[in-house]
């Protein structure tokens, strides 16, 4: 792997890590809200969150490109705030990735929160735990597996992104040139050896990550020591 490919790898990992972190921060409350929501607008929000699953990435990329351009409000605000152009920047591909990978984080979390239900959270409240305390002491430990799944899927999906980044990021080395785009470049240049190297790395990397997720989601071994007890009758000594 030469320096430019290594640089693309670092850009990819940085983008994916940052995207995953942002997704966990905004995806968790969004998933919680959706899990508790009973209004009929729930389906509308769910549909919006799920859109990137079915939409061609170029469609999302196209609209983001327009929005990020200095002629339009989001791009203008960004430029005023940071002094830099948003389109074709690292920030642009992170924002694009957040939107594009949103369902991969929100959906497993929403499902986990729905399955967990209110009963244990209510029990926590009656023991004097406030909402933040309840989230960290009850919800998070009991939905840990789903958080791992959500973070891994969000990360893996971001690493594998191509269309959105090509539309809004272009191909700037060290800024927006990620692995999938570097791979495309090598193929365009008929450099199949380097293309192979990147392709097989992405394939194995994704494979390992997914296998790790499924392994983590296996039923965990009993953590506490099992002692012989009479399950049906309580301790016989109490009779």
């Amino acid at each position, binding site marked *: 792997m030469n320096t430019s490919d290594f640089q693309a790898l670092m850009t990819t990992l940085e983008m994916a890590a940052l995207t995953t972190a942002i997704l966990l921060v905004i995806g968790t409350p969004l998933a919680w809200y959706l899990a508790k929501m009973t209004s009929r607008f729930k389906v509308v929000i769910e549909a919006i969150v799920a859109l990137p699953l079915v939409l061609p990435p170029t469609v999302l990329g196209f609209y983001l490109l327009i929005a990020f351009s200095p002629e339009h409000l989001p791009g203008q605000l960004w430029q005023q705030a940071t002094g830099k152009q948003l389109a074709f920047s690292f920030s642009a591909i992170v924002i694009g990735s957040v939107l594009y990978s949103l369902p991969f984080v929100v959906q497993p979390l929403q499902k986990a929160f729905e399955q967990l239900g209110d*009963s*244990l959270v*209510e*029990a*926590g*409240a*009656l*023991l*004097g*735990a*406030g909402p933040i*305390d309840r989230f960290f*002491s*009850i919800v998070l*430990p*009991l939905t840990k597996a789903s958080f791992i799944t959500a973070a891994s899927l969000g990360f893996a999906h971001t690493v594998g992104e191509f269309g959105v980044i090509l539309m809004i990021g272009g191909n700037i080395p060290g800024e927006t040139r990620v692995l999938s785009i570097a791979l495309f470049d090598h193929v365009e240049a008929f450099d199949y050896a380097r293309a192979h190297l990147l392709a097989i790395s992405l394939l194995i990397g994704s494979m390992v990550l997914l296998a790790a997720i499924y392994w983590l989601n296996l039923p965990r071994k*009993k*953590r*506490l*020591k*099992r*002692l012989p*007890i*009479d*399950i*049906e*009758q*309580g*301790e016989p000594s*109490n*009779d």
Partner: protein
Amino acid sequence: MTNKHVVNAIDAPETAKQANIAELDINIKVNYQQFTLAIDLSIPLTGITGIFGHSASGKSTLLRAIAGLEKSLLGSITLTNNALASNTLVNTEQGYYLKPEHRQVGLVFQNSRLFGHLSVFGNLEYAVKRCKNSQLNLNEIIELTELSNLLAHRVDELSGGQQQRVALARAILAEPKLLLLDEPLSALDQHSKSQLLKMMLTIQKRLNLPMLYVSHSLAELQQVCDNLLVLAKGKVVNFGNIHQVIHQFNRYKENDIIEHQTSLSLPIKAINAHHGLTTLVLNDKQDIYLASDEDFQQQTYLRCFILASDISISLTEPSNSSIVNHLLGTINAISHRDNSVLLTVQCGTQDFFVTISAFSQQRLSLSIKQPVYLQFKAGAVRTFIH
């Protein structure tokens, strides 16, 4: 229960304010599409207060409202402690709503709701850590709930009865001012039920912790409750001393709730080891005898009941009978049922309920105000000790 059964509160326990004891003032409405709960009641918080009703009578909704889990309620709930300091839990007119975590009201649910990621000890510690100015001794509560041998266990390894004991201990360790119990025994076997009932009584007395105990089993409530609140279709049907409320059920024509009976709490006068009989004081002049049980030794009062069908009537004192209990009383009421007659016979201040056949009633030509002898075997006086 139909609406014609609705009676006003009988002999409501003396108002809490006079007696200087804790009180829960409830004036709330909870509206659902198919169901409305409307309660306007002051509950004196002494001992264990039972809440009885069929499913969909509003018992659980009432507990959830007190605990702060019922968001769609209108009205107010105020908790006054025995120092007469009032603590408003909710007052929707003033836009005041105390969150459940600030109410200091504990709740033991039907399905214990233990935290699966924590051990038994972890569950107890969860409550202790969040309790401000904790006064209780953790070890004492562990001992009272007999959890010492289970502390290291995962909660999903426990039996239903063990889980409910953890839930009870956990709720107590949060040191609530009022403990609510929502059908805590309904999923348990008979042995665990009586074990947990005894524990509830011991804990109530030891910690002087008022409890509201919801159940659809009148027999369970009869064992531990001092007062009983009866709900039907979201409304208060009856509230008062538990024995009087149970006697009120006898008077309903269509009583499918409980067998006709006389329900009593009486002081123990003597336990005669020689005859195997225990004597209870009914009034200055009259005693009741029942078969002794070793458990009586630790008690001063005994809860018992006598089924109306276990008592017979005699016009003369049956002095040559093996039946040990014969009490002179006066017929207060005669109520005709299909082929039987329910008599209310007053002995001193205590009403007894007696079912006899219509044939016997005619043969003895019984009438109101007539003095009669009640007779029943020692074995007919049933207690709740298993």
